[in-house]
């Protein structure tokens, strides 16, 4: 219990640390949003006018204070380039990305776990090599490669899915899933590599244990042994590793969403960074960081629950 409280406290502390680092980093970035808005039309006077109207000339401490105050009270500011309240933008885009995160994780696990089990059961034989080679394909070529392949195969050639775009889930839930499918599939392939290996090594460890030998001795079919006994125990660590992949996933989402014109958090973050939209950068980076942090917290707690051998505190 104290461990949980401890962790919660440190989460809050870390979130605070994150706000500091976010603010510092975004203000170090050279170039400013007024210039991005005006592009090559910009001249010193017009830039100053725009900066003034955007409130960029306040001292840093004041800007930081305003931001933190806003975060806590729910006023997350306005995007300088999109001219919309950030909270509104985030809510919309976060839902969109959530769909992709869940879908891609599901796809990745659905592919990786069977593959990993197969490899573990046939350890060191050709199936093992095929399995690891297959999962490695996902990492050897970058996300955008798989993304474009998906577009070419499923959108252009087969015409089963749309090549780009996005739809509000509240308007059309099935449609929203359709638009999310190809990006999720491409992302899932990238996630597979790690998950397959993890499944394989965890399963291998478990299959060598006492209680498995006992189960086999009792006369249970190999199938039951593997899928009900072994996997049930292996699934824990695999899920925790999956949780740790969330951070990696958010990185890949940035590229993948832009490729598919799927405007979620990743796309928003990218636009913010590219355009030096400070309030938006701060908000998106903070949200992503917070989500990753909280996921790690959940993973850590699960770790404790699942593996009582691990003593902490």
């Amino acid at each position, binding site marked *: 219990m104290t461990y949980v409280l401890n962790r919660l406290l440190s989460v809050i502390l870390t979130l605070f640390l994150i706000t500091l680092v976010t603010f510092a980093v975004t203000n170090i970035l050279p*170039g400013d949003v007024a210039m*991005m808005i005006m592009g090559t039309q910009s001249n010193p006077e017009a830039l100053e*006018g725009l900066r003034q109207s955007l409130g960029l000339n306040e001292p840093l401490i004041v800007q930081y204070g305003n931001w933190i105050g806003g975060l806590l009270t729910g006023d997350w500011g306005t995007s300088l380039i999109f001219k919309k309240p950030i909270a509104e933008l985030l809510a919309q885009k976060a839902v969109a990305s959530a769909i992709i995160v869940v879908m891609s994780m599901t796809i990745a696990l659905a592919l990786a776990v069977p593959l990993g089990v197969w490899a573990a059961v046939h350890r060191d034989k050709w199936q093992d090599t095929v399995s690891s080679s297959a999962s490695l394909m996902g990492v050897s070529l970058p996300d955008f490669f798989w993304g474009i392949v998906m*577009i070419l195969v499923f959108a252009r050639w087969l015409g089963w899915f749309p090549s780009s775009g*996005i739809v509000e889930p509240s308007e059309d839930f099935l449609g929203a899933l359709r638009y999310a499918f190809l990006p999720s599939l491409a992302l899932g392939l990238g996630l597979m590599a790690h998950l397959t290996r993890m499944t394989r090594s965890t399963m291998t460890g478990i299959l060598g244990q006492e209680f498995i030998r006992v189960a086999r001795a009792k006369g249970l079919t190999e199938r039951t042994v593997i899928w009900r006994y072994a996997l049930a125990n292996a699934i824990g660590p695999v899920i925790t590793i999956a949780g740790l992949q969330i951070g990696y996933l958010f990185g890949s989402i940035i590229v993948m969403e832009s*490729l598919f014109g799927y405007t979620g958090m990743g796309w928003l973050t990218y636009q913010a960074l590219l*355009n030096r939209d400070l309030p938006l950068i701060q908000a998106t980076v903070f949200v992503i960081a917070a989500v990753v942090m909280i996921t790690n917290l959940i993973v850590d707690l699960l770790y404790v629950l699942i593996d009582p051998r691990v003593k902490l505190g």
Partner: protein
Amino acid sequence: MKRREFLLNSTAVMGGSVLMGGFALPALAQDTPVSGGTLIWGHSETTQNLDMHQTGTASSGRVLQNIHSSIVTVDANLKVIPGLAESFEVAEDGLTYTFKLRPNVKFHNGATMTSADVKYSFERCKDPATGAVNFEVFNNVAAIETPDDLTVVIKMSAVNAPFLSRLAENGAGVIMPVDSGPTQGTNPMGAGPFKFDSYEVGTVVKMSRFDDYWDGPAYLDAVEAREITEPTTRLTGLRTGELHMINDIPLDRVGEIEGDAGLQVKKWFPLNFDFINMNHTFEPFKDKRVRVAFDMIIDKEALMQGALWGQGATTASPSFPTDAAYNKDLVQRPQDIEGAKAMLAEAGYPEGSLNIVFKATTNYPYHIETAQILVEWFKMAGVNLTIEQLTWADWLSQCWVDKDYQMTMMNFFTLWESDFLYYSVWNSKGAFNYRMISDPVIDELTEKARITVDDAARAEVYKAVQKQIFDEAHDILLWFRNGTIGAQPKVMGLDTVVHPNGSNLNFHKVWLSA
């Protein structure tokens, strides 16, 4: 289906925005426009700011062109013609402009346009607090008077010959309803053929027909501008039929789409001009011989074939090709590596002694291709060129604002008004003179042009400016680049889509055949 293709002559320049390209000849019965349908347009860039005054980006311009109308505009020959003003007059002394507005022009909110709206719009643009990109167009405006609802009189404090032309540039001359300023960013409103419905950030801008448009209602019921920045995705969308039309076909794919009988291509030129820049505060570039030698290292035609896949035309002048001020006599220097080497040696830079860093932005991938080709040629001439890739934000920050670079390249979109072009870019006090060029001859000429009221004489002055730029090789002009639109066969009226400025798109006369 027959296909016609107009061949582009790379040295001669034809009148107007030259439209060419293969398109399927429609069956004659379908030549009559049909009303109805929603055009789905795959837009290559993200629209950000919808406030016409505040935005400087071409992406917003393309969309807002349909929502706003300007007080005056230009025809294909770049002559200023009536827009929302049905007539206009310039006084003899050039200090008073009188506009007579069209009666019964409706805004999207139902209100009728009066001179008060004109006064409001211009003053908003001029006000530094608005942060308008074109605010300096109104620098010399002393007063805006509205003697009656349909008359606007603008009094200037000094002669500003280009004023009318600058107004015809969309941002400055746009008329907005009184007090609509604060919401223009989220709900743009004007007197254009389409009214704004919604914008889902980064995804789609939806516009629908404004039935009371002063120039007659549009054919299309609505236009959906879907933002698809990834070229492959955009092309795929066109091919699957999800998109009716796309702008900006990647240069290397234009040939492929043209060869596709199931699609049509509209090419126009120029979209913009590109030029190579040398920082005049960097020691070697202070010497004219070095600059000219660098010019001689480059084979512009071959470079264009290499980096643009032939989608453009080389030019020695940045003026709009149909502008009277375009100096046809200037011919680019041909490639002469040996001559360049000799000239460099003479200037004190024998082979192997020059190391130059070329900063190119990844925002324009063909800039990176250009740079890579240049590296090879410069190597042959004994100059060691290295490339540094910069994101757009970094390029703006380092090259444009801080002038921290040695060599770079850039393009400019809609600078076709001679004063704006030559003064801003080449006058030592010009706002866009990021190469730190200080040439007294050019300074004198550009000032003189500003007060030369006679059009023909003014054109001659600008031709002299171009010659000076060329002789001194202040920059190395490369080419005009083609603009491209790809569309499904059923999209009609594409000949009218491109605004004379080469960048904005207007869907007023576009229609979808059955």
